[in-house]
């Protein structure tokens, strides 16, 4: 369309390949290749092995995976409830109140995650709420971080919602609670699952705030990957990273299937 000559098109595609492949495709390929390598000095990995995966799915590494999964699921669900509630309430408010609610709920995106971690650590290491050293402080920090994305996705979906359905339901005598439960939430379900998937993925990969406050008995997978690579075990770090990516993708895939089922309704 933009380029009409055949040579020009090939030039554009070649430019794309030169930029795209080494920058975006190569890193992922390299991490996967390294996770199967026993040795890598020189151009290509050598001594193929699956030993890193065997180590990645037992003992402390397995524990780190379950820690991450539990943290991400709990934090996403909490964030989804909090964000959806706030978005539904905000949609009913006047423009100026809604704007200040938007600003409040978007604050965790603007504030650096490390600072959120520091703030949560400072606030909950003292009475009245002593959470330092427990798993709840990690879940709490993750919830704070991902609530912004839940709020934002659901808010955007509410704006696109056709008001005719709820007006019809209300005109037929449905109470506001019934309209919310039987009309608005089902219509929002595809966006809710999408928002949940987004929160889950973000929480699975969260490192910044977690580094500030993880207790020794609640080590999520990204922290474990860091400690592995930091002591020089790059290959087992890569295997853990592949496990992290695979777990995230599997859950996202499952969530997107819920979405397609819901949209047929």
């Amino acid at each position, binding site marked *: 369309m933009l380029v009409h000559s055949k040579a020009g098109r090939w030039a554009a595609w070649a430019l794309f390949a030169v930029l795209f492949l080494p920058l975006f495709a190569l890193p992922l390929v390299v991490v996967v290749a390294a996770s199967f390598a026993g040795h*890598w000095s020189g151009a*290509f990995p050598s001594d193929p092995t699956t030993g890193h995966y065997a180590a990645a799915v037992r003992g402390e590494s397995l524990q780190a995976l379950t820690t991450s999964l539990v943290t991400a699921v709990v934090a996403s669900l909490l964030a989804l409830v909090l964000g959806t509630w706030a978005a539904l309430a905000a949609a009913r408010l006047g423009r100026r109140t809604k704007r200040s609610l938007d600003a409040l709920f978007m604050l965790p995106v*603007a504030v650096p995650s490390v600072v959120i971690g520091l703030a949560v650590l400072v606030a909950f290491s003292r009475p009245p709420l002593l959470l330092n050293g427990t798993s709840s402080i990690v879940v709490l920090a993750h919830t704070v971080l991902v609530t912004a994305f839940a709020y934002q996705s659901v808010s955007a979906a509410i704006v696109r919602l056709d008001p005719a359905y709820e007006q019809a339901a209300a005109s037929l005598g449905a109470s506001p609670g019934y309209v919310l439960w039987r009309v608005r939430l089902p219509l929002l379900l595809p966006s809710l699952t999408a928002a949940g998937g987004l929160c889950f993925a973000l929480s699975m990969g969260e490192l910044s705030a977690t580094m500030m406050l993880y207790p020794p008995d609640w080590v999520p997978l990204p922290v474990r990957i860091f400690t592995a690579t930091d002591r020089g075990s790059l290959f087992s770090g890569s295997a853990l990273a592949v496990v992290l990516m695979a777990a995230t993708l599997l859950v996202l895939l499952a969530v997107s299937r819920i979405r397609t089922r819901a949209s047929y309704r």
Partner: protein
Amino acid sequence: MAEATGLAAPAAADDDQATLHAPAGASAPSSPPPAPAARGRRLPRVVWALPPVAVLGVVLLYPLALVVQQSLAPDRGGAFSGYTAVLGSAAFREALGTTVWLAAGATVGCLLLGFVLALIIAFVPFPGARAVAKFIDVFLSFPSFLITLALLFIYGTVGMANGVWTDVTGASEGPFHFLTTPWGVLLAEITYFTPFVVRPLLAAFSQLDTAQLEVASSLGAGPARVIRRVILPEALPALAAGGSLVLVMCLNEFGIVLFTGAKDVTTLPMLVYGKAILESDYPAACVVAVVNIVISVGLFGLYRVVSKRAGA
């Protein structure tokens, strides 16, 4: 993430809502709700917003307030002694400089690279272009430190690039040693954050009427001129929104810098982590944190203004 941020256009406020709560209650969500008895048995709508706001107040605003309080009240000296000590230190100024130039450089790189890639995906489509767009979506859901991990294998001292170099030239060691310098962080940030520019650009390009391009080129405009005069003006809002989001995220990036493991690359988030966790100097960490909050929140506010205008 980029999609969600781009879509947060303000809802058109229903006109009848203004009558339901007092104007004083409309300005801030934390202000006390209007008297509930005003409209009989139904609660005013703002009451429904109070529980989530209260939760956020406890888990976000109260902790942030404590950080500000700690930064102002160190154990010794006056109220601002913590600030003068930290802001005057060479380590802080160096971290501030590194953070700003890395973020600015990465943003420019992401904008250029993202524009070129989105342009080709949208207007010189090839078989598999959709798959590439999908791949970019997936890329966004991975943590940033994966990129640094991969770069260690590609450009590390015994990595691929140096290995190929020594194999080809027979030299004893390769020329790539930039990974532990700021340039390694810059490369990783450009790689990781470019998709955040590509996504809004592809969305903007999909709304562009291709007939405009056909007309322009049938009137004799070359591709460069079509890009400059037709596509670029349409893409500017998306570029501005994507660019400012990337700028904020680069300022706040931690995982990439941490995984680089370079002692001489210290950004503000790294300084916060170092002061708090490695040195246990919480007042100083809080001072750096406050400076970091001010910079990022200011820029994020700018981003919201720009993206609202872009969405309008």
